[in-house]
């Protein structure tokens, strides 16, 4: 009996002692831990790639930025069957948490910021063999963070400005657009110093010095700092940039996937169909095979062909048709931008393929967006057409605008504007048979620039930013509303910006909802 007891106790003791604390130390080896990362140049490079990869998100440049910015502006309109989506482009914001637009866009923009901040927080702890390379990586990161903040300002104005790596308990306060612009000025100045003037063909998605000047010029313009803007634009138009950039002879080359990274392009978001995904993929941040394309074509394609979340306002057709080219044809920009009822007869010598058919009479007077469409049939969820987010024509017109604001319609201002008109085959503005007296005064020329920008840069997510810059006075609003009845819903002092997602304001005592929401 005693033996048994001793035996039992021995076994018990053995098992008790065998179960030491070591058994509780279990490491997660499904991936790297943060503790071993951010040590080498490669880690920093990979961290930066993770920032670039944010382009391929529904809340950023894969999907929702297009219908939202086009729909809010007067060049686009949404008749989407998804009522809430449709209302969000018409200043009818019922649920501020509407995830497809406000949730995704807000979330994914801030994810980009978080990723960029991680690179910036760690880059100085890593030894680089080549200091220039290090500064290039830092400059690229700063440029990307600035780029996103620029668009966030266009959407929400008063979101927080976050420059450090986040932690779970953070409750950042609102920032003002001016505070954001000031930060972007600093960051882009740093980027301009470090970024090279050109990139080789394998690195065209990385920003150049020109891209930094162009972005900074846009920032200054929104800030109404015309002199500073003009300096930046001069680098592009008259300075070193002049030998790098030029307008493409054919307007359509800017929106074709066959003429990417052309000389008019200052920065383009790169899209690819290398990763073939069989379905419309919701953002999967953990999927290494996630798609790398853009859905711009799917969201703006005609009804019953694609999603038709956004289409063009009819006034664009009328405005394009106000003038003909010096050879008596319609403005080629109309052909490259829109599909509409008389497109085939207006452009008899050009090809017309609206997803396998000509214009259908049942479409009535609706106007479909052709810009950025490709020739892939049937329409696929994504295409690989790079989005030219900064191009020279935009810069020329901004230059004209800045110069006009500073010195009135000088020759320099007029010549910059005419370059853009001439490329479309239109006569110099002074000789326009339709627009008379456009160069007569600063105000008249400003009004002309508004029209020129509207036609040259229509449906390129530029218009909303332009409208914001020009301001929404009662008079201005009446003119816009005549082109786009959505602005009937526009309340001055409220709808210049979207509401912040309500959950963010509710759960963050430091974050105030935008005024009047």
């Amino acid at each position: 009996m005693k033996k048994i007891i001793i035996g039992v106790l021995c076994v018990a003791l053995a098992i008790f002692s065998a179960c030491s604390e070591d058994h509780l130390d279990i490491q997660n080896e499904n991936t790297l831990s943060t503790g071993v990362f951010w040590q080498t140049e490669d880690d920093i490079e990979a961290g930066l790639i993770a920032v670039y990869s944010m382009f391929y998100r529904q809340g950023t440049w894969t999907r929702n930025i297009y219908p939202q910015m086009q729909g809010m502006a007067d060049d686009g309109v949404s008749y989407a069957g998804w009522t809430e989506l449709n209302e969000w482009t018409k200043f009818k914001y019922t649920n501020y948490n509407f995830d497809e637009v406000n949730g995704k866009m807000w979330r994914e923009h801030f994810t980009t910021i978080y990723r960029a901040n991680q690179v910036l927080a760690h880059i100085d702890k890593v030894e680089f063999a080549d200091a220039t390379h290090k500064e290039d990586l830092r400059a690229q990161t700063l440029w990307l963070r600035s780029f996103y903040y620029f668009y966030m300002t266009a959407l929400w104005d008063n979101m927080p400005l976050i420059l450090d790596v986040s932690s779970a308990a953070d409750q950042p306060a609102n920032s003002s657009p001016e505070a954001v612009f000031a930060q972007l000025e600093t960051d882009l100045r740093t980027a301009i110093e470090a970024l090279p003037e050109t990139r080789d063909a394998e690195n065209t998605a990385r920003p150049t010095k020109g891209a930094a000047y162009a972005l900074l010029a846009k920032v200054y313009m929104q800030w109404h700092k015309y002199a500073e803007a003009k300096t930046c634009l001069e680098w592009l138009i008259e300075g070193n940039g002049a030998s790098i950039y030029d307008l493409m002879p054919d307007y359509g080359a800017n929106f074709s996937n066959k003429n990417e990274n052309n000389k008019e392009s200052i920065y383009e978001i790169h899209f690819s169909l290398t990763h073939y995904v069989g379905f419309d993929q919701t953002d999967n941040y953990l999927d290494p095979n996630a798609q790398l394309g853009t859905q711009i074509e799917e969201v703006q394609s005609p009804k019953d062909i694609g999603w038709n979340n956004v289409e063009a306002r009819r006034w664009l057709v009328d405005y394009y048709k106000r003038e003909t080219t010096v050879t008596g044809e319609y403005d080629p920009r109309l052909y490259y931008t829109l599909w509409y009822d008389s497109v085939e007869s207006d452009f008899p010598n050009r090809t017309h393929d609206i997803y396998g058919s000509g214009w259908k009479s049942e479409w009535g007077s609706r106007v479909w967006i052709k810009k950025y469409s490709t020739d892939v049939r049937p329409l696929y969820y994504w295409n690989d057409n790079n989005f030219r987010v900064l191009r020279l024509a935009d810069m020329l017109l901004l230059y004209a605008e800045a110069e006009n604001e500073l010195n009135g319609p000088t020759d320099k201002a007029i010549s910059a504007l005419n370059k853009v008109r001439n490329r479309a085959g239109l006569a110099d503005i002074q000789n326009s048979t339709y627009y008379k007296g456009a160069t007569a005064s600063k105000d008249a020329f400003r009004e002309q620039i508004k029209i020129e920008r509207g036609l040259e840069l229509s449906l390129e997510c530029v218009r909303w930013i332009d409208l914001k810059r020009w301001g929404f006075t009662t008079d201005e609003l009446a003119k816009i509303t005549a082109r786009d009845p959505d602005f009937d819903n526009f309340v001055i002092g409220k709808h210049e910006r979207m509401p912040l997602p309500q959950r963010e304001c509710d759960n963050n005592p430091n974050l105030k909802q935008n005024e009047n929401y």
Partner: protein
Amino acid sequence: MKTNTANNQTRSLFRKIQYLSVMLVFLCIGSVVASAQTTVRGSVTDENGSPLVGVSVSTDVNGKKTGTATDLDGNYSISVQGGATLTFSFIGYLDETVNPEGRTDINVSMKPDTKLLDESVVIGYGTVKKKDILGSVSTVREQALDDRTTGNVIESMRGLTSGMKITSSGQPGSNASIVIRGLGSLTNNSPLFIVDGNYGGSEVGLNVEDIESIQVLKDASSAAIYGSRAANGVVIITTKKGTKGGLKVKFDSNVELNWLPRYDLMDAETYKLYDDRAYAEAMLQGVEGVTGYQNHFEANTDWQDEMLSMGVLQNYNVSLSGGSDDIRYYTSLNRMVDDGALYGTGYDKYGFRVNTSGRKGIFEFGENFFYTRSSRDNMGSSSWSNFITMPPTIPVYDANNPGGYGYGSSDRANTYALNPVAQENINESVNDEEYMYGNIFGQINLFKDVFKAKLNLAYKSYYGITNKLRKKGNWTMGQGDDAASVSSSMAKHHDILIEHTYTFDKTFGKHDVDAMVGMSYNRFHEETRSATKLDPLTVGDKYITSINAATGTTSATGGYTESALISYLGRINYAYADKYLVQITARRDGTSKLPQGNKWGNFYSGSVGWRISSEDFFDVPAINDLKIRANYGVLGNTNIGVWDYQSTINTAPRAVLGASDKVYVGMTQSNLTNNDLVWESKTTANVGIDMTAFRSRFTVAAEWFLSKSEDLLVYLPILWTTGNEGGAPATNAGSLQNTGVELELGWNDRKGDFSYAVNLNLSHVRNKVLSLGYGQTVYYTGTSISEIGKPLGMWYLYEMDGIFQSKEEVVAHQNSEGKIIQPNALPGDIRYVDYDDDGQIASTDRHIVGSPWPWLEMGLGVNLAYKGFALNLSGYGRFGQTVFNGARATAGDFNTNQNNFNGLKPWTQENPSTTHPRIIYGDTRNSRNDQDRWLEDGSFFRFSDISLSYSLPSSLISKIGFEQIKVSVIGKNLVTFTKYSGLDPEFADGGIYTLGYDGCSFPNPRSVSFGLTFTF
């Protein structure tokens, strides 16, 4: 364990004696030739000599039972055939059988039946007598489960004990969820399941027929021995062991016809009428792009008819059991086939069990083994919302669409609604699962069972594989040319438990000591793999589903998780003279889920009890047993992910940077983490009273409790401005308090052949947020708010204040400064309350408009038996909760061409309504989700089970060798009392952040089933 065995032994000894006496009686009968009748008289008294009134006295006359009852003085008189015996029976007392042997005057003194009190209850690593329980424990016995046809253990417990909220989704083969005594944790509120000493939940597909008893440990003191895993309570399931005696064969079969409730939706003709009206309003409103009515499709589809039918569930069970003094066995085989009532769903399960146990000298040993294998045809659509969102005008099939199914079209039915038939047919998903589950144990009993050492090894292994086929074809407008694909995902896990326990149990005079120490080690390991390949090959219309046979892009994922828990545990039970009871439990847990330095937690509890009825001064004859008990304890919880405290790098980001489309690999941290997590703790105080009275016919258990959870481990959603992706990180956030009272009342009695029992349980829990995470004082989630000092998840919505009847009323709706609040409203629109009086309807106008918490939960059981007939009713109810009817919100008044319910009377100029606004297509002003219009009183009471059974008289069937033949018919969820207009008031909500939100949940099926049981 000792008490149990000893009890069984004592019981079986008694049984032997009974058998012997019965045998003797029979022998006597056999030897005596039928003789003359004599009259026997006498009186019947209780153990104290007081007369007993109404005692049934019976005897056999020519093989027929006759009887009488005692009068007011306890006297009786009955004629007895020579040689026949007299049986005295009275509820609460042991039956007495007397052979008159020629006497004509027989006085009987009956002994109280203490069986109910001596019943032992499993409390984890041991048992106690029911009367000695100091914690809060509810028991469900085999008999109560007997007539329940459900295939799911949790569902079978519904309404049987107090303090439990059980919700099920109704999908074939799906699991139900159970919450004991309100929300204590914010991550996982499921209690710990222990099956025969092994960890495991209802997910293993346990067979209800195999269950002998279920104990629910509700408070800290009872559950403390399970330490960190027990904060939400413990459900201990004991399976059948077999009883001593020859081979017993039991066969159960059950066929259930079930059907699902339906929405009362408009047909195409009515729909068109209303939809046109919504378009007319849109044109009146000037909704952009609406210039005419829809050119409606011509079909008249009842989507519910297409998807719902009568389901047939068949359940068969055969068990073999028996045993001797040394060894006992129970084996069973089970098959369940559920052809779901919803198109494209089904469940098929096999299971078998072998339980054996034995004893040889000082050694005791045993094993429980269970294997189950199931196949589930998964639901491929979210049908219940599709029924509403799909216009009835759309045809099921439409050859013009890829795949041939009907769906929206911008001119004819402008909707992105999903065709559920197409979804089910195009997506095939079958989930095959296997569980192997069991334990073996060995025990040495020394010094006449005073000391015992037990080693228990338990193992649970799971293998599951889900195969999916996605065929070509579309189910909604705007869907692209999706690729076909095949995928296979597999998960495999195993869970090992090694435990040894040492118990000491001895009575020294009036001192009764029962002590236990032990150690337990648990390790869990899981592996997952998944592969998807596009473009499977086809032969004609048939898809080849092997992944090898697909030709497109391949993607694969795989990973593992691993965790461990080491525990040291101990418990002392001490009783003095059966009057004063004390129990102390302590446990030390170490987990791999928390960071270094925070891994270990100590948890303890103490209980005291006082059996007043054993005191000399206690002299209330009506009360058989009376006990007051109180306890206090702390439990820990780490119900979080395995590696939540470790920060990791996401290696999935990719980007293209240049001409050659080369893909670059990005790496970054995506998930934020909190690296300083600690144990969540829950402190519970409990005071209760147990009483048995009126000859054990009446039982009461009343209970008050207070529990406070601190350092709650929760995935508290964090701000999006952090840039966090992939779900909120775990954090120790705040604390929560639950207070409640529970009352269980029971009455049972017998009048001759008629017996009945009524059990009622009531519980009331109040929940209060004491603090929230990240220093927040208030936390908002979509439609609800959690504020310090208030219950969790209160409805936080815009309030509707009637309907504008005229333009004047719109103008008259002003704030205190005279600003018109809704200047754009038209007659027929909702008047919202401008709660903050700022002259506009904006986010600051939301306020608390209701509570999702019931103030009372109730379970009711009624059992009636007469001869072979038994009628059992069990009901369950919840009262006072405000719930969100997501179906009505989904219907949304035609704003995106959804269907709606019959009887809709929207506001119109001709028939102005004060309750229902006008319907407008393309405008969500009146149908917004975040308004209180969708809230309803969710109170209900439901007879969840009504069963009627008949057992053939044993005198009849014993001749053909049967012990029992029983037929039964059972109705489930057939009778419900509620004002709730949704499909089912007993819906499964979305968990802690959407309490009471019925988002078109899968309703519980109604059913009628027929059962046949025989034992021989």
